[in-house]
């Protein structure tokens, strides 16, 4: 069963190995595509949605990329398993919560995922660790080219690739990088940064948090415009701003070390202390504390822990991952107890021995 494999591994994007991975968690590109011969998903009948799924599955299996992927029928999965895939960033929350015929094809490295019958008939996603947008683009363009050779995408000379929502029309591309910006949050410069990003039409959202308040200081920067510029221009728009943000964050980290090292060290140590000893802990608190510890590791304030350990814990302490590991459904209260137990044993057993 595929889930057993997923459970014991972590996605490539969590390895914390790519360029600038002290600040850039991951680089992602997704393309929105639709079949020309069917209504968009929201207006398709149940039968038409099944036909779309069948058509795409059958055509994908004829491509070399498709044959390497594992296909999962999302309607046939348990809620918990769908939630697991969301936490893994292999499908969107909307895709998990929807109804009707839909599925996802995933490669074993968890870099490529093809979502069928999400908001659009096909959403191609490619995800790498660290700052790696050019490689992500080359990989996803390769996948897209293979698919477009055998699938008639809806396309219009003027409007480009046609999508269910006009906010995606044209290239259908969404380029995003996930950044860990704790020092900019602590030094209260983050709002200023966001205002300047909005001015150049880039969107910012918190990764796990709701609204603009990002949990654990993780922020996703992405392009908002999809029409009238080439894919490369849109990628560069995001790629060009990231080094600037990295520089700001590094300077803020240096400032914290120089000016308030005792305080920062104290915050990091307290966070680590709670994670190692808590008896019950919520997902939100875990995220906040792991964020502090992650910064501490990178500033050399924490020994015996790697960034990749923290990255793994960020995913494994989420609700569905905890329950899959435990093998049973748990309510919030029991999850908080299990989360604390898992964290204690992870830190006790010495962290880096796991795959």
């Amino acid at each position: 069963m595929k889930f057993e494999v997923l459970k014991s591994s972590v996605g490539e994007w969590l390895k914390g190995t790519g360029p600038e991975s002290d600040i850039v968690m991951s680089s992602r590109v997704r393309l929105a595509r639709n079949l020309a011969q069917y209504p968009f998903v929201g207006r398709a009948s149940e039968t038409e949605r099944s036909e779309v799924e069948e058509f795409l599955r059958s055509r994908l299996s004829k491509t070399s990329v498709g044959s390497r992927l594992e296909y999962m029928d999302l309607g046939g999965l348990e809620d918990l398993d769908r939630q697991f895939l969301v936490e893994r960033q292999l499908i969107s929350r909307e895709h998990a919560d929807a109804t009707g015929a839909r599925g996802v094809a995933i490669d074993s490295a968890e870099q490529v995922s093809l979502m069928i019958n999400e908001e659009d008939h096909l959403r191609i996603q490619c995800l790498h660790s660290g700052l790696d947008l050019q490689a992500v683009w080359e990989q996803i363009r390769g996948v897209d080219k293979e698919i477009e050779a055998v699938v008639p995408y809806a396309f219009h000379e003027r409007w480009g690739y046609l999508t269910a929502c006009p906010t995606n029309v044209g290239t259908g591309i969404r380029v995003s990088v996930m950044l860990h910006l704790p020092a900019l949050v602590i030094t209260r410069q983050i709002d200023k940064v966001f205002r300047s990003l909005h001015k150049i039409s880039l969107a910012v959202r918190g990764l796990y948090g709701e609204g603009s308040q990002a949990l654990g200081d993780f922020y996703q920067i992405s392009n908002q415009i999809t029409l009238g510029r080439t894919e490369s221009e849109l990628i560069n728009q995001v790629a060009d701003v990231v080094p600037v943000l990295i520089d700001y964050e590094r300077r803020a980290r240096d400032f914290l070390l120089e000016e308030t090292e005792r305080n920062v060290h104290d915050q990091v140590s307290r966070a680590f202390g709670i994670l190692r000893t808590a008896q019950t802990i919520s997902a939100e608190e875990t995220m906040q504390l792991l964020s502090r510890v992650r910064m501490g590791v990178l500033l050399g304030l924490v020994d015996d822990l790697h960034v990749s350990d923290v990255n793994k814990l960020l995913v494994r302490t989420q609700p569905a991952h905890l329950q899959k590991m435990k093998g049973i459904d748990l309510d919030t209260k029991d999850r908080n107890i299990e989360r604390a137990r898992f964290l204690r044993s992870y830190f006790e057993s010495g962290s880096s021995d796991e795959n």
Partner: protein
Amino acid sequence: MQCQQCDKQAMFHITELETGNVRELHLCEDHARVYLNQAEADSQQDDSDDGSGSIGVGQTAKELSEIDQKFCDMCGITFFEFRNQGRLGCPHDYVQFEEELEPLIANIHGEVKHTGCRPKRDKSAEDQSVLPESTEELTSVIGMRKKIREAVEGEDYEVAGTLRDDIKKILHKWHAEEPTK
């Protein structure tokens, strides 16, 4: 909180103050964008008549309601339904509602012409003419399927049969045949 237009999480909480009326809206990012674009266009209508091209500019309420009633020949969605849901019904909507969508799209993207990649079909395909300028012909089968359903309801099986053959021809031409079961 859930978006009032779809299943996504509501990220925007808007309170509209109208004469004697308070209206609360809870919308996801996409629907909020569509709604706010619309609101902006409406307000431009109120305070200017420079004909700057946004929806509603210089148009009367009657004309606006006529636009809302326009529907797509293929999937049948009305412009009103689109405005409410923020999602179009099928690829043909971009042709059918081109005039109405243009200001909206210009508002979102600042541009009205695609300059990026274009799909290339299988090079080994015999008929290279199917490499698309647009995929309108293939999209027309959506409307033909609707006509088949109507014909079957009216027990006009001959018409339904002819339409099925026509669809097959178009799908074949575009190498979009349904998978054999």
